[in-house]
């Protein structure tokens, strides 16, 4: 009697279990395979080439700063300084594309799998402090063997280097009440001492930058930490990513740089569109205060986005959207990225001048970047069912 009552349940469950298990022996799931191909493309066609290029650029930068430091000891060395500035610009140009790749070892450990915060060692903007650099310059802290192990990120990296190479004036950036000024230690430096120390400090920072760039490359390379492989094999044994979708979510989270940093911090604040700017405009808040390449860096950020989105014209998110029946969206995002680049390039002169002289163009550039982020934050997220890791701190229903 009881067997006959239980049998419909048993039969139903067995049937459904069988349906599920029938799927197991199949080969690999094509969707998950596609995700891993996309992730492999990001790792091998985007991240590794970018970091490799950056490593080369930092090596060239170190050579240039070494030449500057040597030449400066004897006399002013404008040629060597210009060469070092150009090498910094080249390295920064590459790094601005890498800003979109703050995942894995470059990312924050609280958010990214395998995060080691290596990005901040290389470039910590907006955590920058020219005053702290001046203080270290006076104290010659950069000569200490453990300087780069103990110092905060705002006294080294590309940002500190920008200040050291491009600010050649006699003034410092600390307030008058700072011991540096109040105690007279800055004023005691001669122009020659200042120049020599800046060059020596820059050379020390460039040396560390090269080591950090190499370490980041090694963390992704097959001969090192091989994070590229870990990303490319997400969801399989040996990868720290539980699923390929989880890894994809983290790549997506890295794209948020365009929204929160490019649009809001780099454009809206200097343009006075953000309440963080208390004046009409805030040209002093531009990203590249000393080298005056803020606009170029914004363009490089968007180029970085495009490369990441397309997988460097290999397998990318654009292909995934097509696969997900949203080819129009793929086209729209690429067009929006291109339009944003055009709008940024249309800003005449430097960004710090343009925010006052050509506010309409700056606002147009902001709108163009926003049009891109609106697409990325809405239909793109939905179609690929993406989530930034911080969103996961709750259940749903």
């Amino acid at each position, binding site marked *: 009697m009881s067997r006959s*009552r239980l049998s*419909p*349940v048993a039969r*139903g*469950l067995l049937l*459904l279990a069988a*349906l*599920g*298990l029938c*799927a*197991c022996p*199949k080969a690999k*799931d*094509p*969707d*998950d395979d596609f*995700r891993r191909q996309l992730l492999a493309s990001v790792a091998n066609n985007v991240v590794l080439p970018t970091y490799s290029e950056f490593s080369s650029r930092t090596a060239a930068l170190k050579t240039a700063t070494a030449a500057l430091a040597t030449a400066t000891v004897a006399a002013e060395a404008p040629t060597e300084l210009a060469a070092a500035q150009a090498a910094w610009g080249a390295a920064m140009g590459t790094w601005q594309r890498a800003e979109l790749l703050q995942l894995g070892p470059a990312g924050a450990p609280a958010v990214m799998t395998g995060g080691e915060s290596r990005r901040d060692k290389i470039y910590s903007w907006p955590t920058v402090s020219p005053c702290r650099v001046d203080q270290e310059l006076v104290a010659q802290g950069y000569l200490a063997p453990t300087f780069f192990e103990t110092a905060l990120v705002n006294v080294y990296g590309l940002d500190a280097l920008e200040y050291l190479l491009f600010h050649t004036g006699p003034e410092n950036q600390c307030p008058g009440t700072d011991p540096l000024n109040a105690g007279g230690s800055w004023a005691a430096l001669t122009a020659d001492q200042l120049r020599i120390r800046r060059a020596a400090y820059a050379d020390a920072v460039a040396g560390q930058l090269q080591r950090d760039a190499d370490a980041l490359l090694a963390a992704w390379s097959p001969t090192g930490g091989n994070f590229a492989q870990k990303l490319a094999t997400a969801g399989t044994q040996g990868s720290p990513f539980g*699923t*390929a*979708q989880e890894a994809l979510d983290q790549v997506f989270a890295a794209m948020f740089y365009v*929204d*929160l940093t490019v*649009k*809001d911090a780099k454009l*809206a604040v200097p343009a*006075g*569109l*953000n*309440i963080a700017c208390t004046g*009409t405009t805030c040209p002093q808040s531009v990203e590249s205060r000393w080298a005056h390449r803020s606009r170029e860096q914004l363009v490089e950020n968007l180029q970085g986005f495009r490369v990441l989105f397309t997988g460097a014209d290999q*397998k990318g998110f654009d292909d995934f959207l*097509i*696969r*997900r*029946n*949203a*080819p129009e*969206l793929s086209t729209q995002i690429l067009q929006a990225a291109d339009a944003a680049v055009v709008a940024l390039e249309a800003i005449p002169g430097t960004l710090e001048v343009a925010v006052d002289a050509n506010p309409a163009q700056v606002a147009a550039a*902001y709108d163009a970047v*926003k049009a891109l*982020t*609106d*697409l*990325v934050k*809405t*239909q793109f*997220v*939905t*179609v*690929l*069912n993406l989530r*930034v890791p*911080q*969103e*996961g*701190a*709750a*259940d*749903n*229903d």
Partner: protein
Amino acid sequence: MTDRLGQLRTWLGRPVDGASLVAFRVLFGSVLALGLVRFLLTGWIRPQYVEPGFFFKYPLFDWVRPWSESGMYLHYGVLALLALCVAAGAGYRVAALLFTLGFAWVQLIDVTNYLNHYYLVVLLGTLLVFLPLNQLASVDAWLRPSLRRATVPAWALYLLRFQVAVVYVNAGRAKLSADWLLHAQPLGIWMNARTGTPLIGNLLAEPWIPYVMSWSGFLFDTLIVVFLSWRRTRLFAYGLVVLFHSLTHVFFDIGLFPFLMTVGALVFFPPDWPRTLWARLTRRPASPVEVSSPPSRLPAWGLGAIAAFCLVQLLLPLRHLAYDGNVLWTEQGMRWSWKVMVREKNGSVTYQVRSRDSGRVWRVNPAQYLTLRQMNEMSGQPDLILQLAHHIAQDFQTRGVGPVEVRAEAWVSLNGRPPRLLIDPDFDLTSALDGVLPAEWILPGPDSPPLAVGRRTQP
């Protein structure tokens, strides 16, 4: 009429075996205790109650604030203990009351934390306060023999059955839409992201699966109460309940919901099912409970209270019918309506703040005020967008800007559709109040079909 009401009160007051409701008490309290411990262990206290600089408030409850971080940990810890007290029937009514108030309190802190099953916990907790479920197998009855009674009034059983039925039926009703049934969305989107699921991942990649799951989910939610209520199909139906909620547990991060409903569905079994089950497990004859005690008539005020509760539970999920447009788009009438997992909505909101004095315009990314989780929840919900607009206006005043107008450009994608504006970008949100009236500043939803399910090409 009076006679019929009298008969109804007698019928509702008649004693029935209290075993099933005691089992419900034990399982409900245990599941909640485990769920609360899980919440503590996941570390969600910080992102939900400490990190946000702004909390979205429920009307009339804007005074509810989170404790300090350690206070919130303590609060959740005490809630877990109270849930255990409910399960054990120790200081039952006080424990149930404090648990319900404490649980409701944490839910009132921030609207973005709203979940249908948290609301269900509050409702069930409220019912438990009034149900005499500590008369049997409880610490209270052990300490006070005068409490011991093997029966409960029938209304207690029917009230719980009603509450569980309301959830299922309305969840089914919410799926009666073209998106769900004709386009298999948003399940199509969600399943595509879960093809890495062990064992069944391959199956989920099949384009027909979302359709099967959508229709299965609709039929399950709509009909399961009927099948649970019918003796001949009850056991099979409960097997489906277990299977359905197991699958939803695997596929979606919906926390306690599957466990709550699996426990809740047990109330449809005969009230003596724990005795029958125990007899089978121990291979001893079942000892039916004496129900010869005289029926105690449900008082008139009790009948009135139950009727009022039921009426509210019946009407509240239907209130969206009073508004124009798709509730999944406007969200007017969305909360407390058991529209569980029926939409995938993502938005991008930018506020435009204009000084009334100088005419100067600022752009505000909600991320300046919200965590990413809050922002994600807010960006598709007009009332929350309105609430933040008011907060931004207040904040700008505090900063010395003076009076401002706040407009929102809110692009929202519903179930994979191309994004469109949710709110009139020309409407000054500071001139609107949050309320139950239709919000004219919410723009009409999309007419186009959602994202098509399935793969197209092999790029």
